[in-house]
């Protein structure tokens, strides 16, 4: 770990706990590479941070931007505005520049050769400094503009050369010394530019003494958590923004003796996963809204036939095909209620990128122990964000399926009544355990039945196993104290946490466990609340509606909800809370 340096700017600026910057340029300009490099180097210095990308509708060659925030504390959501915006070029900038506000004391770096600064930006009156990215880069043999940009940012925030070069060498070392040297020269050129700037945005050293950083996306974390939990089979059909879960699982499963099959569609992928799980292998698939919709019929089969299976839904803007590359929390309804018939099952949601790992692992554990489908509601903002986190703690959860022993008795009842509603499951190959799993209403053996008594007892049993399970204290997050509460779920937890930094007497309550509804635990967490702000990224307020359905809300309720792609920010939450406190 290398120590951060003082900012290289000539004037001295107070170091801050968080700094945000954006690097924009058409695809191919290397904006994303530059952002990644800075993020990873920051990790080597013990900072935290997050990288998001903003890309245009073009498949390739359109506008792209790396949005980066670095902080001294764990931080996964973007700030409301950027301290520095640096443009390698301005192509297509009209389409997104409105969504990338620069702070009033921020700085825009622009190369006059890349064209005029977009009016929308210039009009804000923000400071604009020009720097000859193009010329600086072409003055260096093999020099690249995006590396000059890296140097500028590094200089402004105080990111040391050694950390950057460690990353550069690891990434480009294979390409030979000349390439590495060109990068160094480009970065140095950028740093000199930064030193000439009238601004600087020094980042304070990482506050807490912590261990090594991991650099990971939510989609990777979900995949790793699933494997940690015991997943050994995956079925895949690509869909944005879930594809990376599958693309992570494919080689990773192969390494540890599992396998992934690419299916012809989502109907096949979910059924493949169910088939593999019937065979005794903990199984998973990952998809997004449209794919989840196609899986619901088979998920009902998994409920009725009591087959464990985990589905990761990386939510995007809906309805229908919506906006594939942007985030929303609007699959809550379908995940909870999207079954025909009464179908008790489990729905959980990671509360941060780091928590993706825990939540996925917990999902596998619960699916296997309860012999049920578990739907994990991640979303694009978690899945595709690349963050610096501490190494996630090891979790004890493992797939622990209750199986039936071999026997000569010939009396095996697959769907036998038990105290906890979970019946020992015979895995094919088990002597004397032969049975036929069935999605029709069935008796204890699994034989289809039209009897009211069978329908009732099997439904009671399936409900009992879900409702009687011990979810421990994993149902959610409770932080702070106060009779004003911010109540949210999933990916907005980090945003809410960020919003409440610095505010006092405000409580944060966030659900990780969506269904079954953690009624008692939530009621306890809300006991004494006078005002509750319910925050969610949906147009219709699905989350609040869902909560209302399950509990009385004996306090003043306000709602902060909005459809995607415009994510709710910490500042908005804070403003709503302040507003309330004021009144």
């Amino acid at each position, binding site marked *: 770990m290398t120590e951060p340096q003082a900012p290289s700017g000539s004037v001295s600026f107070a170091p801050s706990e968080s700094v945000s910057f954006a690097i924009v340029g058409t695809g191919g300009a290397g904006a994303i590479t530059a952002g990644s490099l800075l993020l990873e180097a920051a990790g080597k210095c013990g900072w935290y941070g997050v990288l998001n990308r903003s890309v245009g509708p073009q498949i390739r060659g359109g506008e792209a931007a790396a949005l980066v925030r670095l902080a001294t504390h764990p931080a996964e959501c973007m700030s409301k505005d950027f301290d520095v915006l640096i443009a390698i070029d301005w192509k297509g900038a009209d389409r997104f520049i409105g969504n990338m506000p620069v702070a009033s004391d921020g700085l825009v770096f622009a190369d006059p050769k890349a064209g005029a600064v977009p009016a929308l930006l210039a009009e804000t009156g923000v400071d604009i400094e020009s720097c000859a990215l193009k010329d600086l880069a072409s003055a260096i043999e093999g020099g690249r503009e995006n590396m000059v940009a890296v140097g500028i940012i590094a200089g402004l925030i105080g990111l040391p050369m050694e950390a950057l070069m460690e990353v550069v060498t690891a990434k480009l070392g294979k390409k030979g010394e000349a390439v590495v040297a060109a990068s160094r020269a480009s970065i140095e050129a950028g740093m000199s530019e930064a030193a000439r700037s009238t601004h600087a945005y020094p980042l304070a050293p990482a506050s807490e003494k912590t261990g090594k950083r991991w650099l990971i996306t939510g989609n990777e974390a979900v995949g790793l958590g699933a494997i*940690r939990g015991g997943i050994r*089979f995956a079925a895949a059909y690509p869909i944005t923004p879930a594809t990376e879960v599958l693309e992570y699982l494919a080689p990773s499963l192969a390494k540890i003796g599992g396998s992934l099959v690419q299916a012809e569609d989502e109907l096949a992928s979910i059924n493949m996963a169910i*088939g593999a799980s*019937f065979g005794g292998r903990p199984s998973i698939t990952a998809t997004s809204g449209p794919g989840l919709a196609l899986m619901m019929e088979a998920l*009902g089969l998994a409920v009725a036939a009591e087959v464990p299976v985990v589905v990761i839904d990386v939510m995007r803007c809906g309805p229908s095909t919506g906006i594939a590359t942007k985030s929303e929390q609007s699959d809550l309804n379908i995940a909870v209620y999207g079954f025909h018939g009464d179908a008790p099952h489990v729905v959980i949601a990671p509360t941060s990128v780091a928590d993706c790992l825990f939540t996925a692992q917990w999902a596998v554990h619960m699916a296997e122990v309860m012999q049920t489908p578990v739907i994990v509601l991640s979303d694009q903002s978690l899945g595709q964000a690349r963050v610096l986190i501490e190494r996630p703690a090891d979790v004890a959860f493992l797939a622990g399926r209750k199986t039936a022993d071999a026997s000569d008795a010939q009396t095996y009842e697959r769907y036998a009544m038990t105290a906890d509603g979970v019946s020992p499951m015979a895995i094919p190959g088990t002597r004397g355990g032969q049975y*036929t799993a069935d999605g029709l209403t069935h008796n204890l053996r699994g034989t*289809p039945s039209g009897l009211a008594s069978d329908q009732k007892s099997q439904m009671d049993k399936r409900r009992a196993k879900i409702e009687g399970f011990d979810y421990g204290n994993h149902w959610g997050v409770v932080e702070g104290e106060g009779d004003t509460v911010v109540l949210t779920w999933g990916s907005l937890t980090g945003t809410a946490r960020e919003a409440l930094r610095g505010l006092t007497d405000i409580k944060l309550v966030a659900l990780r466990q969506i269904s079954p509804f953690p009624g008692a635990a939530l009621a306890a967490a809300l006991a004494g609340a006078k005002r509750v702000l319910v925050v969610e990224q949906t147009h219709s307020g699905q989350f609040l509606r869902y909560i209302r359905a399950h509990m009385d809300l004996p306090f003043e309720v306000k709602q902060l909800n909005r459809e995607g792609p415009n994510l709710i920010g910490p500042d908005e939450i804070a403003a709503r809370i302040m507003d309330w406190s004021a009144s």
Partner: protein
Amino acid sequence: MNANAFKAKDYKSDIAPIWCPGCGDYHVLMSITKAMAELNRDPKDMAVISGIGCSSRIPAYTNCYGFHGVHGRSLALAAGLKVSRPDLTVMVMSGDGDGFSIGGNHFLHACRRNIDMTYIVMDNRVYGMTKGQPSPTTEPDWDSALSPGGTGLSPFHPLVIALASGANFVAREFSGDIKNSTKTIVEAVNHPGFSFVEILSPCVTFRPDEREWKGAVHRASVEETDDPARAARRIMTDDGMNTGILYRGHRKPYAAHVKDEIGDASALEAKFEV
């Protein structure tokens, strides 16, 4: 002569079929259990997977592991099972509606994927379970409530589709011919890769005319081939009633990549360390 440890009855369960008296599927049940006895695999190591339909009720009538899934998805269930449990013998049982109508896409892709399993479709050219609607193999002029006067559509060639999409073994049998059906099923199971057997199995209730099939079927007059193009041409021009093994190919079955030794997930962490 079967000098095996297991007899056909060892593969039969004690559950009474819901089928109509005279349904061809009774014969198919006999053929598959006889074939299992010939194969002499322990029933605990066999799995019979199906969808929804009269024909798809068959798994519970065997004494193997079974999965009576949702309509049309048996091949996908079976693919997941076989890839992750290559030690099991997997048979998939379907009907012409379940397999060729709603399940058509999985049929195409199962043939192409060529996983080592056997797919048996009980073709009665009708949706029996839902009381008599035309299926993809139904004749164009067959009258029914849903298609008064007939669909006017020429029926499907499941065997040709199987060939065109890469099945490794293709055969047609008649349910009433238990001896040949049994033999062909044994061959199908023993052949590596995806084997497809269409069994003409009369629906006496909604297609009483299919009682005539007994007289109409005849053994294929030409030898089986390993040339899919020839086999396809032959089947496209036959009368749909000739039975026997029509194609036996040499495509490499799907390789599952599943190792017996399960590795350690902690090895995956290094990738993320900064």
